[in-house]
Protein backbone atom coordinates (compact mmCIF):
# COMPACT_ATOMS: atom_id res chain seq x y z
CA UNK A 1 0.00 0.00 0.00
CA UNK A 2 2.76 2.43 1.00
CA UNK A 3 4.56 1.53 -2.18
CA UNK A 4 1.44 2.29 -4.17
CA UNK A 5 1.08 5.70 -2.54
CA UNK A 6 4.75 6.53 -3.07
CA UNK A 7 4.49 5.61 -6.71
CA UNK A 8 1.27 7.62 -6.96
CA UNK A 9 2.96 10.63 -5.38
CA UNK A 10 5.87 10.49 -7.79
CA UNK A 11 3.54 9.96 -10.71
CA UNK A 12 1.53 13.02 -9.73
CA UNK A 13 4.70 15.07 -9.28
CA UNK A 14 5.90 13.90 -12.67
CA UNK A 15 2.58 14.64 -14.36
CA UNK A 16 2.34 18.06 -12.73
CA UNK A 17 5.93 19.13 -13.47
CA UNK A 18 5.89 17.94 -17.05
CA UNK A 19 2.55 19.50 -17.84
CA UNK A 20 3.55 22.75 -16.13
CA UNK A 21 6.72 22.80 -18.21
CA UNK A 22 4.88 22.28 -21.50
CA UNK A 23 2.06 24.61 -20.51
CA UNK A 24 4.67 27.34 -19.90
CA UNK A 25 6.35 26.68 -23.22
CA UNK A 26 2.98 27.03 -24.92
CA UNK A 27 1.34 29.65 -22.70
CA UNK A 28 4.20 32.13 -22.30
CA UNK A 29 4.44 33.13 -25.98
CA UNK A 30 0.64 33.32 -26.24
CA UNK A 31 0.47 35.55 -23.17
CA UNK A 32 3.20 37.80 -24.59
CA UNK A 33 1.40 38.06 -27.94
CA UNK A 34 -1.87 38.89 -26.16
CA UNK A 35 -0.10 41.90 -24.65
CA UNK A 36 2.00 43.20 -27.54
CA UNK A 37 -0.66 42.66 -30.22
CA UNK A 38 -3.17 44.88 -28.43
CA UNK A 39 -4.30 48.09 -30.10
CA UNK A 40 -1.91 50.15 -27.96
CA UNK A 41 0.66 47.38 -27.57
CA UNK A 42 4.20 47.58 -28.91
CA UNK A 43 3.40 45.52 -32.04
CA UNK A 44 -0.32 46.06 -32.67
CA UNK A 45 -2.07 43.27 -34.59
CA UNK A 46 -5.69 43.49 -33.58
CA UNK A 47 -7.00 40.52 -35.58
CA UNK A 48 -4.29 38.22 -34.26
CA UNK A 49 -5.04 39.33 -30.72
CA UNK A 50 -8.78 38.72 -31.20
CA UNK A 51 -8.23 35.23 -32.59
CA UNK A 52 -5.80 34.23 -29.84
CA UNK A 53 -8.04 35.70 -27.21
CA UNK A 54 -11.12 33.80 -28.38
CA UNK A 55 -9.12 30.55 -28.59
CA UNK A 56 -8.00 31.11 -25.01
CA UNK A 57 -11.53 31.90 -23.84
CA UNK A 58 -13.01 28.91 -25.63
CA UNK A 59 -10.64 26.39 -24.10
CA UNK A 60 -10.97 28.00 -20.68
CA UNK A 61 -14.75 27.77 -20.77
CA UNK A 62 -14.77 23.99 -21.30
CA UNK A 63 -14.94 22.10 -18.00
CA UNK A 64 -11.71 20.18 -17.63
CA UNK A 65 -13.29 16.74 -17.28
CA UNK A 66 -15.12 17.26 -20.58
CA UNK A 67 -11.96 18.59 -22.20
CA UNK A 68 -10.12 15.40 -21.27
CA UNK A 69 -12.78 13.24 -22.92
CA UNK A 70 -13.07 15.51 -25.95
CA UNK A 71 -9.33 15.29 -26.38
CA UNK A 72 -9.24 11.46 -26.47
CA UNK A 73 -8.71 11.23 -30.24
CA UNK A 74 -6.05 13.94 -30.13
CA UNK A 75 -4.34 12.33 -27.15
CA UNK A 76 -4.30 8.96 -28.90
CA UNK A 77 -2.74 10.61 -31.92
CA UNK A 78 0.06 12.15 -29.84
CA UNK A 79 0.94 9.42 -27.32
CA UNK A 80 -0.81 6.36 -28.79
CA UNK A 81 -3.25 5.86 -25.89
CA UNK A 82 -6.06 7.81 -24.30
CA UNK A 83 -5.33 6.73 -20.71
CA UNK A 84 -2.26 6.64 -18.47
CA UNK A 85 0.32 9.16 -17.39
CA UNK A 86 1.35 10.36 -20.85
CA UNK A 87 -2.27 10.85 -21.85
CA UNK A 88 -2.92 12.86 -18.69
CA UNK A 89 -0.06 15.16 -19.50
CA UNK A 90 -1.42 15.86 -22.98
CA UNK A 91 -4.84 16.80 -21.65
CA UNK A 92 -3.41 18.88 -18.82
CA UNK A 93 -1.12 20.79 -21.15
CA UNK A 94 -3.96 21.66 -23.50
CA UNK A 95 -6.12 22.70 -20.57
CA UNK A 96 -3.38 24.73 -18.88
CA UNK A 97 -1.97 26.65 -21.85
CA UNK A 98 -4.83 29.18 -21.95
CA UNK A 99 -4.70 29.46 -18.17
CA UNK A 100 -0.97 30.22 -18.27
CA UNK A 101 -1.46 32.62 -21.20
CA UNK A 102 -3.96 34.73 -19.23
CA UNK A 103 -1.72 34.74 -16.17
CA UNK A 104 1.26 35.83 -18.26
CA UNK A 105 -0.88 38.51 -19.85
CA UNK A 106 -1.89 39.98 -16.51
CA UNK A 107 1.66 39.73 -15.14
CA UNK A 108 3.02 41.71 -18.10
CA UNK A 109 0.19 44.23 -17.90
CA UNK A 110 1.57 45.23 -14.50
CA UNK A 111 4.82 46.51 -16.05
CA UNK A 112 5.09 50.33 -15.95
CA UNK A 113 3.76 51.64 -19.24
CA UNK A 114 6.13 54.61 -19.04
CA UNK A 115 9.05 52.22 -18.89
CA UNK A 116 7.88 50.54 -22.08
CA UNK A 117 7.59 53.97 -23.74
CA UNK A 118 11.05 54.80 -22.45
CA UNK A 119 12.47 51.62 -23.96
CA UNK A 120 10.86 52.51 -27.30
CA UNK A 121 12.44 55.95 -27.25
CA UNK A 122 15.78 54.31 -26.53
CA UNK A 123 15.46 52.46 -29.81
CA UNK A 124 14.70 49.00 -28.43
CA UNK A 125 13.21 46.53 -30.90
CA UNK A 126 9.96 44.77 -30.02
CA UNK A 127 11.92 41.61 -29.27
CA UNK A 128 14.27 43.51 -26.96
CA UNK A 129 11.33 45.08 -25.16
CA UNK A 130 9.73 41.69 -24.58
CA UNK A 131 12.90 39.98 -23.40
CA UNK A 132 14.72 42.81 -21.61
CA UNK A 133 11.80 44.77 -20.21
CA UNK A 134 8.51 42.86 -20.03
CA UNK A 135 9.93 39.51 -18.95
CA UNK A 136 12.72 40.89 -16.76
CA UNK A 137 10.38 43.23 -14.92
CA UNK A 138 7.83 40.52 -14.24
CA UNK A 139 10.20 37.82 -12.99
CA UNK A 140 8.66 37.65 -9.49
CA UNK A 141 5.14 37.52 -10.94
CA UNK A 142 6.21 34.81 -13.38
CA UNK A 143 7.68 32.70 -10.58
CA UNK A 144 4.43 32.98 -8.64
CA UNK A 145 2.59 32.07 -11.80
CA UNK A 146 4.55 28.82 -12.07
CA UNK A 147 3.52 27.84 -8.57
CA UNK A 148 -0.11 28.76 -9.19
CA UNK A 149 -0.08 26.66 -12.35
CA UNK A 150 1.46 23.68 -10.56
CA UNK A 151 -1.07 23.89 -7.74
CA UNK A 152 -3.95 24.11 -10.15
CA UNK A 153 -2.55 21.16 -12.06
CA UNK A 154 -2.32 19.05 -8.89
CA UNK A 155 -6.10 19.34 -8.73
CA UNK A 156 -6.60 18.84 -12.45
CA UNK A 157 -4.26 15.84 -12.45
CA UNK A 158 -6.48 14.25 -9.81
CA UNK A 159 -9.44 14.81 -12.11
CA UNK A 160 -7.56 13.15 -14.93
CA UNK A 161 -7.27 10.20 -12.56
CA UNK A 162 -11.01 9.66 -13.05
CA UNK A 163 -10.34 8.43 -16.55
CA UNK A 164 -7.34 6.33 -15.57
CA UNK A 165 -4.81 9.11 -15.80
CA UNK A 166 -2.44 7.71 -13.19
CA UNK A 167 -1.12 9.40 -10.06
CA UNK A 168 -2.81 10.07 -6.72
CA UNK A 169 -6.21 10.88 -8.21
CA UNK A 170 -6.26 7.55 -9.97
CA UNK A 171 -5.45 5.74 -6.70
CA UNK A 172 -8.06 7.69 -4.78
CA UNK A 173 -10.73 6.71 -7.27
CA UNK A 174 -9.74 3.06 -7.69
CA UNK A 175 -9.15 2.28 -4.01
CA UNK A 176 -11.07 4.95 -2.17
CA UNK A 177 -14.16 5.10 -4.33
CA UNK A 178 -14.51 1.71 -5.99
CA UNK A 179 -13.14 -0.45 -3.11
CA UNK A 180 -14.34 1.66 -0.21
CA UNK A 181 -10.82 2.00 1.27
CA UNK A 182 -11.44 5.32 2.94
CA UNK A 183 -7.98 5.37 4.53
CA UNK A 184 -6.35 5.36 1.09
CA UNK A 185 -8.62 8.15 0.01
CA UNK A 186 -7.71 10.21 3.07
CA UNK A 187 -4.01 9.57 2.66
CA UNK A 188 -4.06 10.75 -0.97
CA UNK A 189 -5.78 13.91 0.18
CA UNK A 190 -3.19 14.50 2.91
CA UNK A 191 -0.35 13.97 0.45
CA UNK A 192 -1.89 16.39 -2.03
CA UNK A 193 -2.39 19.05 0.64
CA UNK A 194 1.25 18.74 1.70
CA UNK A 195 2.34 18.86 -1.94
CA UNK A 196 0.41 22.05 -2.54
CA UNK A 197 1.80 23.65 0.62
CA UNK A 198 5.36 22.78 -0.34
CA UNK A 199 4.99 24.10 -3.87
CA UNK A 200 3.40 27.28 -2.59
CA UNK A 201 5.97 28.07 0.08
CA UNK A 202 9.07 27.16 -1.91
CA UNK A 203 8.04 29.22 -4.93
CA UNK A 204 6.97 32.10 -2.74
CA UNK A 205 10.38 32.03 -1.14
CA UNK A 206 12.13 32.18 -4.52
CA UNK A 207 9.78 34.87 -5.83
CA UNK A 208 10.39 37.07 -2.81
CA UNK A 209 14.13 36.68 -3.14
CA UNK A 210 13.97 37.68 -6.79
CA UNK A 211 11.73 40.67 -6.10
CA UNK A 212 13.98 43.73 -6.22
CA UNK A 213 11.14 46.10 -5.48
CA UNK A 214 11.29 45.17 -1.81
CA UNK A 215 13.66 47.41 0.12
Amino acid at each position, binding site marked *: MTELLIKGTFDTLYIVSMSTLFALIGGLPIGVLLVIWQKNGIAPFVYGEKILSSFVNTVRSIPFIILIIALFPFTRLIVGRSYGIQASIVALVVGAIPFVARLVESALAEV*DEGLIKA*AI*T*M*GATSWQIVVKVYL*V*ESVPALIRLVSLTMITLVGYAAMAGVVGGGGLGDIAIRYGLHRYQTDVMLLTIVIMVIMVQLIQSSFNFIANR*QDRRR*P
Partner: protein
Amino acid sequence: MIRIENLTKSFKNENSRLVALNNVSANIGNGELLGIIGSSGAGKSTLIRHLSLIEQPDSGTIWLDEIDLFKLKGRDLLRMRRQLGIVFQGYHLLEQKNVYENIAFPLQLVKMSKTEIKKRVDELISLVGLNGKAQAYPVQLSGGQKQRVAIARALASSPSLLLCDEPTSALDVVTTKSILDLLVEIHRKTQVTIVIITHELSVVKAVCQRVIVMDEGSFVEDGSVKQVFTSPKHEMTKLLLGYQEGQL
Protein backbone atom coordinates in the same frame (compact mmCIF):
# COMPACT_ATOMS: atom_id res chain seq x y z
CA MET B 1 20.96 71.90 -35.61
CA ILE B 2 17.30 71.03 -35.06
CA ARG B 3 14.63 72.77 -37.07
CA ILE B 4 11.03 72.45 -35.96
CA GLU B 5 9.00 73.42 -39.01
CA ASN B 6 5.26 74.26 -38.91
CA LEU B 7 4.59 71.33 -36.61
CA THR B 8 0.87 70.71 -36.12
CA LYS B 9 -0.88 68.03 -34.14
CA SER B 10 -4.48 67.74 -33.07
CA PHE B 11 -6.38 65.12 -31.10
CA LYS B 12 -9.94 64.16 -31.83
CA ASN B 13 -12.14 63.62 -28.83
CA GLU B 14 -15.77 62.43 -29.15
CA ASN B 15 -17.11 65.71 -30.41
CA SER B 16 -14.28 68.19 -30.45
CA ARG B 17 -10.89 68.61 -32.02
CA LEU B 18 -8.12 69.73 -29.75
CA VAL B 19 -5.14 71.43 -31.32
CA ALA B 20 -2.21 70.43 -29.10
CA LEU B 21 0.45 71.87 -31.42
CA ASN B 22 -0.57 74.75 -33.62
CA ASN B 23 1.86 75.34 -36.46
CA VAL B 24 4.96 75.80 -34.30
CA SER B 25 8.43 76.54 -35.65
CA ALA B 26 11.81 77.08 -34.00
CA ASN B 27 15.47 76.38 -34.54
CA ILE B 28 17.59 74.81 -31.85
CA GLY B 29 21.31 75.26 -32.35
CA ASN B 30 23.94 72.72 -31.39
CA GLY B 31 24.96 73.07 -27.78
CA GLU B 32 22.03 75.22 -26.77
CA LEU B 33 20.45 74.93 -23.35
CA LEU B 34 16.82 75.65 -24.09
CA GLY B 35 13.86 75.79 -21.76
CA ILE B 36 10.31 75.35 -22.94
CA ILE B 37 7.78 76.61 -20.44
CA GLY B 38 4.01 76.64 -20.40
CA SER B 39 1.08 75.93 -18.16
CA SER B 40 -0.70 72.60 -17.95
CA GLY B 41 -2.20 71.56 -21.27
CA ALA B 42 -0.05 73.95 -23.30
CA GLY B 43 1.25 71.07 -25.42
CA LYS B 44 4.71 70.61 -23.90
CA SER B 45 4.53 66.85 -23.58
CA THR B 46 3.04 66.56 -27.04
CA LEU B 47 6.00 68.51 -28.40
CA ILE B 48 8.47 66.29 -26.59
CA ARG B 49 6.76 63.15 -27.86
CA HIS B 50 7.36 64.46 -31.37
CA LEU B 51 10.97 65.31 -30.59
CA SER B 52 11.44 61.82 -29.19
CA LEU B 53 9.94 60.31 -32.34
CA ILE B 54 7.12 58.40 -30.74
CA GLU B 55 4.36 60.55 -32.21
CA GLN B 56 3.69 61.53 -35.84
CA PRO B 57 2.54 65.10 -36.58
CA ASP B 58 -0.51 65.92 -38.69
CA SER B 59 1.67 68.25 -40.73
CA GLY B 60 5.02 69.98 -40.56
CA THR B 61 8.20 68.22 -39.57
CA ILE B 62 11.41 68.30 -37.58
CA TRP B 63 14.80 68.36 -39.26
CA LEU B 64 17.97 67.14 -37.62
CA ASP B 65 20.70 68.62 -39.78
CA GLU B 66 19.60 67.36 -43.22
CA ILE B 67 17.41 64.51 -41.98
CA ASP B 68 13.62 64.74 -42.01
CA LEU B 69 12.92 62.88 -38.77
CA PHE B 70 9.39 61.81 -39.65
CA LYS B 71 10.47 60.19 -42.90
CA LEU B 72 12.59 57.67 -41.00
CA LYS B 73 11.36 54.08 -40.98
CA GLY B 74 12.42 50.74 -39.54
CA ARG B 75 16.13 50.38 -38.79
CA ASP B 76 16.88 54.05 -39.50
CA LEU B 77 14.20 55.12 -37.05
CA LEU B 78 15.61 52.83 -34.35
CA ARG B 79 19.11 54.16 -35.02
CA MET B 80 17.91 57.76 -34.73
CA ARG B 81 16.04 57.03 -31.49
CA ARG B 82 19.25 55.64 -30.06
CA GLN B 83 20.91 59.02 -30.70
CA LEU B 84 18.45 60.85 -28.50
CA GLY B 85 18.61 60.90 -24.73
CA ILE B 86 15.39 61.40 -22.83
CA VAL B 87 14.77 62.05 -19.16
CA PHE B 88 11.23 61.61 -17.90
CA GLN B 89 9.47 63.08 -14.91
CA GLY B 90 8.62 59.62 -13.61
CA TYR B 91 12.18 58.20 -13.97
CA HIS B 92 10.90 54.94 -15.52
CA LEU B 93 13.80 52.76 -14.44
CA LEU B 94 13.93 48.97 -14.60
CA GLU B 95 12.88 48.08 -11.06
CA GLN B 96 14.36 44.59 -11.28
CA LYS B 97 17.79 45.88 -12.32
CA ASN B 98 20.39 47.76 -10.34
CA VAL B 99 21.87 51.17 -11.10
CA TYR B 100 24.69 49.74 -13.19
CA GLU B 101 22.37 47.57 -15.29
CA ASN B 102 19.92 50.42 -15.79
CA ILE B 103 22.60 52.70 -17.18
CA ALA B 104 23.97 49.87 -19.30
CA PHE B 105 20.55 49.14 -20.80
CA PRO B 106 20.75 51.40 -23.90
CA LEU B 107 24.28 50.13 -24.55
CA GLN B 108 23.15 46.51 -24.40
CA LEU B 109 20.49 47.34 -26.96
CA VAL B 110 23.21 48.15 -29.48
CA LYS B 111 25.20 45.09 -28.39
CA MET B 112 28.24 46.97 -27.15
CA SER B 113 30.93 44.71 -25.67
CA LYS B 114 30.95 44.08 -21.91
CA THR B 115 34.28 45.84 -21.36
CA GLU B 116 33.24 48.91 -23.31
CA ILE B 117 29.95 49.00 -21.41
CA LYS B 118 31.78 48.80 -18.09
CA LYS B 119 34.06 51.65 -19.04
CA ARG B 120 31.21 53.87 -20.16
CA VAL B 121 28.91 53.07 -17.24
CA ASP B 122 31.65 53.69 -14.66
CA GLU B 123 32.30 57.05 -16.31
CA LEU B 124 28.61 57.97 -16.19
CA ILE B 125 28.16 56.85 -12.59
CA SER B 126 30.83 59.25 -11.48
CA LEU B 127 29.58 62.00 -13.81
CA VAL B 128 26.16 61.96 -12.16
CA GLY B 129 27.62 61.53 -8.68
CA LEU B 130 26.39 58.05 -7.85
CA ASN B 131 29.72 56.53 -6.84
CA GLY B 132 29.21 53.51 -4.61
CA LYS B 133 25.60 53.06 -5.74
CA ALA B 134 26.23 50.84 -8.76
CA GLN B 135 24.75 47.76 -7.12
CA ALA B 136 21.74 49.50 -5.55
CA TYR B 137 18.25 48.82 -6.86
CA PRO B 138 15.88 51.73 -7.69
CA VAL B 139 13.71 51.00 -4.64
CA GLN B 140 16.72 51.77 -2.44
CA LEU B 141 17.26 55.20 -4.03
CA SER B 142 15.75 58.62 -3.33
CA GLY B 143 13.89 60.48 -6.06
CA GLY B 144 16.92 62.63 -6.82
CA GLN B 145 19.17 59.60 -7.08
CA LYS B 146 16.70 57.88 -9.39
CA GLN B 147 16.67 60.94 -11.60
CA ARG B 148 20.49 60.83 -11.66
CA VAL B 149 20.31 57.24 -12.88
CA ALA B 150 17.81 58.29 -15.52
CA ILE B 151 20.09 61.13 -16.65
CA ALA B 152 23.08 58.78 -16.84
CA ARG B 153 21.00 56.31 -18.83
CA ALA B 154 19.90 59.05 -21.22
CA LEU B 155 23.52 60.08 -21.74
CA ALA B 156 24.82 56.53 -22.14
CA SER B 157 24.73 56.44 -25.91
CA SER B 158 26.39 59.88 -26.14
CA PRO B 159 23.35 61.58 -27.66
CA SER B 160 23.57 64.87 -29.50
CA LEU B 161 20.29 65.94 -27.94
CA LEU B 162 19.14 65.50 -24.35
CA LEU B 163 15.41 65.98 -23.83
CA CYS B 164 14.11 66.46 -20.31
CA ASP B 165 10.36 66.34 -19.72
CA GLU B 166 9.62 67.91 -16.34
CA PRO B 167 12.81 66.42 -14.89
CA THR B 168 12.34 67.94 -11.45
CA SER B 169 8.59 68.11 -11.00
CA ALA B 170 8.56 65.16 -8.61
CA LEU B 171 11.44 66.49 -6.52
CA ASP B 172 11.76 68.83 -3.56
CA VAL B 173 13.48 72.21 -3.82
CA VAL B 174 16.92 71.10 -2.63
CA THR B 175 16.98 68.01 -4.83
CA THR B 176 15.69 70.05 -7.76
CA LYS B 177 18.62 72.41 -7.35
CA SER B 178 21.12 69.55 -7.33
CA ILE B 179 19.61 67.97 -10.44
CA LEU B 180 19.60 71.30 -12.26
CA ASP B 181 23.21 71.91 -11.25
CA LEU B 182 24.02 68.49 -12.64
CA LEU B 183 22.36 69.31 -15.97
CA VAL B 184 24.32 72.58 -16.19
CA GLU B 185 27.54 70.75 -15.38
CA ILE B 186 26.83 68.09 -18.01
CA HIS B 187 26.11 70.82 -20.51
CA ARG B 188 29.37 72.56 -19.69
CA LYS B 189 31.40 69.35 -19.91
CA THR B 190 29.86 67.76 -22.98
CA GLN B 191 28.26 70.64 -24.89
CA VAL B 192 25.29 68.37 -25.58
CA THR B 193 22.17 70.22 -26.72
CA ILE B 194 19.67 70.19 -23.85
CA VAL B 195 15.96 70.91 -24.05
CA ILE B 196 14.18 71.17 -20.71
CA ILE B 197 10.42 71.16 -20.65
CA THR B 198 8.86 72.51 -17.50
CA HIS B 199 6.03 74.48 -15.99
CA GLU B 200 8.31 75.96 -13.34
CA LEU B 201 9.77 79.37 -13.94
CA SER B 202 12.56 78.79 -11.43
CA VAL B 203 13.88 75.86 -13.46
CA VAL B 204 14.23 77.96 -16.60
CA LYS B 205 15.74 80.86 -14.68
CA ALA B 206 18.26 78.62 -12.98
CA VAL B 207 19.69 76.84 -16.00
CA CYS B 208 18.54 78.02 -19.40
CA GLN B 209 20.05 80.50 -21.81
CA ARG B 210 17.03 80.67 -24.04
CA VAL B 211 13.35 80.13 -23.38
CA ILE B 212 10.30 79.38 -25.47
CA VAL B 213 6.92 80.12 -23.88
CA MET B 214 4.07 77.84 -24.96
CA ASP B 215 0.39 78.56 -24.68
CA GLU B 216 -2.52 76.59 -26.15
CA GLY B 217 -0.32 74.77 -28.63
CA SER B 218 1.62 77.80 -29.87
CA PHE B 219 5.07 79.25 -29.23
CA VAL B 220 4.08 82.68 -27.98
CA GLU B 221 7.50 83.92 -27.04
CA ASP B 222 11.06 82.91 -27.90
CA GLY B 223 14.23 84.64 -26.83
CA SER B 224 17.01 84.85 -24.28
CA VAL B 225 15.88 84.18 -20.73
CA LYS B 226 16.96 87.65 -19.68
CA GLN B 227 15.09 89.41 -22.45
CA VAL B 228 11.88 87.38 -22.21
CA PHE B 229 11.64 87.66 -18.47
CA THR B 230 12.57 91.32 -18.12
CA SER B 231 10.24 92.54 -20.84
CA PRO B 232 7.52 89.91 -21.29
CA LYS B 233 5.22 90.56 -24.23
CA HIS B 234 2.62 87.83 -24.10
CA GLU B 235 -0.07 87.51 -21.44
CA MET B 236 0.98 83.96 -20.65
CA THR B 237 4.55 85.01 -19.97
CA LYS B 238 3.32 87.70 -17.63
CA LEU B 239 1.08 85.18 -15.94
CA LEU B 240 3.98 82.80 -15.48
CA LEU B 241 6.05 85.62 -14.07
CA GLY B 242 3.32 86.25 -11.56
CA TYR B 243 2.13 89.63 -12.77
CA GLN B 244 -1.23 90.43 -11.28
CA GLU B 245 -4.07 91.60 -13.45
CA GLY B 246 -4.58 95.31 -13.07
CA GLN B 247 -0.97 95.87 -12.20
CA LEU B 248 0.06 95.80 -15.83
